[in-house]
């Protein structure tokens, strides 16, 4: 039986899709059979970030409406064994994402995969609710910035009340905080909240810190999940986060400024 992970944030543009792509790729690289589902109906983008946009034939809504089956809709990643993508539909009809439909798709995927990663759309509308509804664990993607932190807190409230686990009274969804677009120099200048600050406000255990990096734009430009760029700090940060997620003990990296001796004196 698969474990279901939702990647969520409330606010848009904080790195949900980047995280969903990076996380699922890292899980698959470790040998887990993983599927990543784009729940952003009408604004499909995971396919672009994963570099499989030209291979989309059937999508999630087609499967729900029985216009195609799951095998036809699942796109097998060409680089990483065990990795599959289920793209969102570009339809403007948001009602197409029915609870019954999602229930049956998730039910079928659960039998075949180790991990199901659900990439949530921004906001707190239907698509975001569907993405979190079946989750066992949640990655809360937050930028160290006021609006992102506040929206994450709203989402945390919903994970505790508007999901299947909450409705059934099962053990609550296990939450993990991922602070992204982190700039250690700004933190040390006092211009950016630290990961510790964000963690303290949200009261969710910190899974990892992903530094702001030009490599991320370069990776999405080329349709390569950042975890495949082994040289990039952001990619390494995601590898660390996945290792911690799987129970390994890895010290936090990229939290502090790499200080050169002279910079202390000359402010370089």
């Amino acid at each position, binding site marked *: 039986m698969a474990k279901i992970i939702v990647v969520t944030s409330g606010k848009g543009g904080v790195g949900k899709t980047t995280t969903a792509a990076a996380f699922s790729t890292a899980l698959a690289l470790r040998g887990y059979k993983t599927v990543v589902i784009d729940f952003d109906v009408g604004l499909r983008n995971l396919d672009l970030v994963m570099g499989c946009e030209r291979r989309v034939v059937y999508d999630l809504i087609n499967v729900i409406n029985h216009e195609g089956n799951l095998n036809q809709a699942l796109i097998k990643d060409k680089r990483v064994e065990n990795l599959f993508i289920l793209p969102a539909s570009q339809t403007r009809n948001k009602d197409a994402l029915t609870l019954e439909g999602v229930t049956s798709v998730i039910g079928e995927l659960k039998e075949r995969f180790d991990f199901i990663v659900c990439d949530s759309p921004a906001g707190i509308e239907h698509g975001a609710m569907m993405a979190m509804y079946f989750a066992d664990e949640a990655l809360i993607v937050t930028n*160290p910035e006021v609006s992102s*932190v506040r929206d994450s807190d709203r989402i945390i409230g919903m994970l505790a009340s508007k999901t299947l686990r909450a409705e059934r009274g099962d053990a609550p969804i296990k939450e993990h905080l991922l602070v992204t677009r982190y700039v250690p120099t700004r933190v040390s200048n*006092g*211009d950016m909240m630290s990961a510790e600050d964000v963690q303290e406000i949200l009261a969710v255990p910190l899974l990892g810190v992903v530094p702001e990096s030009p490599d991320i734009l370069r990776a999405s430009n080329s349709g390569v999940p950042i975890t495949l760029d082994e040289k990039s700090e952001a990619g390494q940060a995601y590898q660390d986060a996945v290792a911690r997620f799987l129970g390994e003990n890895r010290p936090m990296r990229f939290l502090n400024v790499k200080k050169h001796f002279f910079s202390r004196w*000359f402010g370089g």
Partner: protein
Amino acid sequence: MSGFLDYFKISRRSSAAVAKERLQIIVAHERGMLKGPEYLPMLQQELLAVVRKYVPILDEHIKISMDKDGEYEILELNISLPDVSTKNSHFRTP
């Protein structure tokens, strides 16, 4: 140069510290609002209107909260009346 300016920054509170404090306040407030049933804020407004017919009170003088005690839900209502011993003696409750 920035190192030189940093020296003076110590006396000012950093913007990150301000952000953290503002967030802690708003998040605590919003969590409180979301905790109870949906009608709670409306009930609070209507109670406020009723009390105001007799006593001039401010918004913050009325506190309402919902707690769970075993099987029971307890609605706690706290209204602080202003000092009635002063000139508004006709507002005194029986």
